[in-house]
């Protein structure tokens, strides 16, 4: 799998995406001009703090933005497999599709799958875990119920669930947090997606369980060749998993680059400040940290110009507060949106 893509043609290309939430108090511009590119089989890490729009970007791609949220502008080009599964593929603009139309339903869950942070609330409490995986398989594949059950058990075994033929009939609450997340991954991968979107997949887990789950995702990616969009606030998880990284702040991608460049040659003042502010395992104890001044602004209270300018140490008065910087290439696959580089 995975090699049917044309080289150099991205699997996913998000262009100038805007997703707004119109509310009585004003419009929340949750995603305000996001552009991203992902190649088949790659792992793109999307990192940012609360309210940066990373989850809404993912939900926009899957067309499951909750009301009153709406894509108001932009394109989401996704390269689909051809019907016969052979060579050749065609791209569709997901932003133009009907959210619950036939085409979107045949993509969602089958070609693009999602795993969430909280596996407890993503499984139904009254149906067995196995039945929910079986349902997903029956929905997207031409296979009978017995075959689907065998495939569900097989998937549970692949994700490291012990005695899967018994676990398949258990309810979600009978499984531990780590096992639920494994079952969720089994469900997501049961239809062999080309893109897996993982939204904070290990945030609710303990650190030794997180290690197991990240290891599992890495191994399954090697075997199946799917691309992973990994959304997290944890720079450690990003460094561990991603091939490329997009740093988001207040609805925009401020910097995108290969993982090594983000951590060892960051360009945007926000990326640099973020990396300076986090406590490190290798630092000496009781050594002062360098925090970022202020806090993330309230969504109704967006700053003008560059959204980071009120907290930026390199703020240029008269420029950063008036104009919004666009993305600019500063190196190989490395773009940054900042007036320091214009």
């Amino acid at each position, binding site marked *: 799998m995975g090699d049917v893509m044309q080289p150099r043609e991205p699997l996913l290309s998000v262009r100038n995406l805007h997703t707004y939430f119109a509310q009585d108090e004003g419009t929340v511009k949750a995603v305000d001009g996001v552009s991203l590119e992902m190649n088949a089989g790659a792992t793109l890490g999307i990192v940012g*703090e*609360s309210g940066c729009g990373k989850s809404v970007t993912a939900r926009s791609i899957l067309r499951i933005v909750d009301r009153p949220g709406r894509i108001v502008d932009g394109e989401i080009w996704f390269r689909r497999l051809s019907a016969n599964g052979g060579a050749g593929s065609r791209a569709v603009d997901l932003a133009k599709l009907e959210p619950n139309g036939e085409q979107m339903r045949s993509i969602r869950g089958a070609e693009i799958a999602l795993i969430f942070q909280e596996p407890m609330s993503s499984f139904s409490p009254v149906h067995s875990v196995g039945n929910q995986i079986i349902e997903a398989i029956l929905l997207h594949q031409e296979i009978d119920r017995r075959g689907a059950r065998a495939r569900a058990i097989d998937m549970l075994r692949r994700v490291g669930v012990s005695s899967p033929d018994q676990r398949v009939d258990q309810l979600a609450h009978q499984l*531990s947090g*780590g*096992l639920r997340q494994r079952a969720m991954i089994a469900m997501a991968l049961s239809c062999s997606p080309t893109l897996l979107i993982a939204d904070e997949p290990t945030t609710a887990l*303990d*650190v*030794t*369980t*997180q*290690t*197991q789950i*990240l*290891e599992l995702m890495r191994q399954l990616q090697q075997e199946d060749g799917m691309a992973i969009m990994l959304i997290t*606030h*944890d*720079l*450690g*998880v*990003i*460094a*561990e998993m*991603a091939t490329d990284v997009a740093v988001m702040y207040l609805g925009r991608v401020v910097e995108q680059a290969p*993982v*090594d460049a983000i*951590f*060892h040659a960051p360009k945007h003042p926000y990326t640099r*400040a*973020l*990396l300076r*502010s*986090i*406590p*490190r*395992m*290798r*630092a*000496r*104890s*009781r*050594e*002062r*940290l*360098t*925090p*970022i001044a202020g*806090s*993330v602004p*309230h969504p109704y209270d967006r700053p003008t110009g560059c959204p980071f300018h009120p907290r930026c140490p390199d703020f240029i008065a008269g420029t950063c507060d008036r104009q919004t910087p666009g993305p600019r290439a500063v190196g190989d696959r490395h773009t940054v949106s900042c007036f320091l580089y214009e």
Partner: protein
Amino acid sequence: MSAVREPRSAAAHAPLLRVAGLRKLFPIRKGFLKRTVGYVRAVDGVDFHIDEGETLGLVGESGCGKTTTARCILRAIDPTGGEIAMRLADGSVVDLTTLGEAELRAIRREMQMIFQDPFTSLNPRMTLLDLVGEPLLVHGMKSRREREQRVADLLRRVGLRPEYMRRFPHAFSGGERQRIGIARALALQPRLVVADEPVSALDVSVQAQILNLLFDLQEEFRLTYLFVAHDLSVVRYISNRVAVMYVGRIVELGETEEIFTAPKHPYTAALLSAVPEPDPRTRGKRIVLPGEVANPAAPPSGCYFHPRCPHAIEVCRTQTPAFQETSPGHVVGCHRAHELRLAGVE
């Protein structure tokens, strides 16, 4: 029962807090008659002390008993057994587990708590003045003017503008709310502050501000912290000493630098290696532990960690390890503490 107070001279060099043999069992009830069919051993024989002005980090994964330990010390819940000796401002030492409600109330002003979630721990119908001033009122500061003065001082000290004291918590960001919680905890000038995951609900860029603030307040007011957290990088930053818990027991305790660079317990080593470093060049050097954390209602025999331990030998399956001191002040509950060579962080 009344408090047993040790004479002043004997207590002069006692630690601020000494916990010995602390246990908390929660009964498991089943059936129509709610008969007790077993116990969850949430805290199962915990010993440590904290010196005045020091920070002890208490780390472990969910369900290890770190929060239950903290709540027992504050007597938010009653421990099943053990001793919690606190040295009071007047120099006397008192066992908190023996105190009744009235005696506790007087002592509570010396120990305060900072909570994890600044969104649920502040009453949304109270202004900052009421929130921070409430403990002052409860402990006898009746004059409103005096309270306003003190609240203004406290807000300024934690980095908030006193002009905001008539606003409600919803007008503030997560980091600002945590500052309000800290101001409230400091209102009565406590000596012991128990902080339960105080930065884990905050944005990464705000965590550093709050950690630096806790650090400064400690220096200024000579505070003693019991810092409960699951994030080891945060614990390394704030703690003088660290205690690592696993299934209701401390498995290793020592100076922060020693715990991080030369761990002696295989669980500590695995925990340290599991934390992903924000550096892609260190990728993939992880100890992946098999299985899951043991069930505290039905823990395994011998050492609770043996089913997951890469270094387990026969004795680990049958006997509970005793504490061994591997170097002064560094204690480890592992049969092989002296022979194993474990890697820490560089």
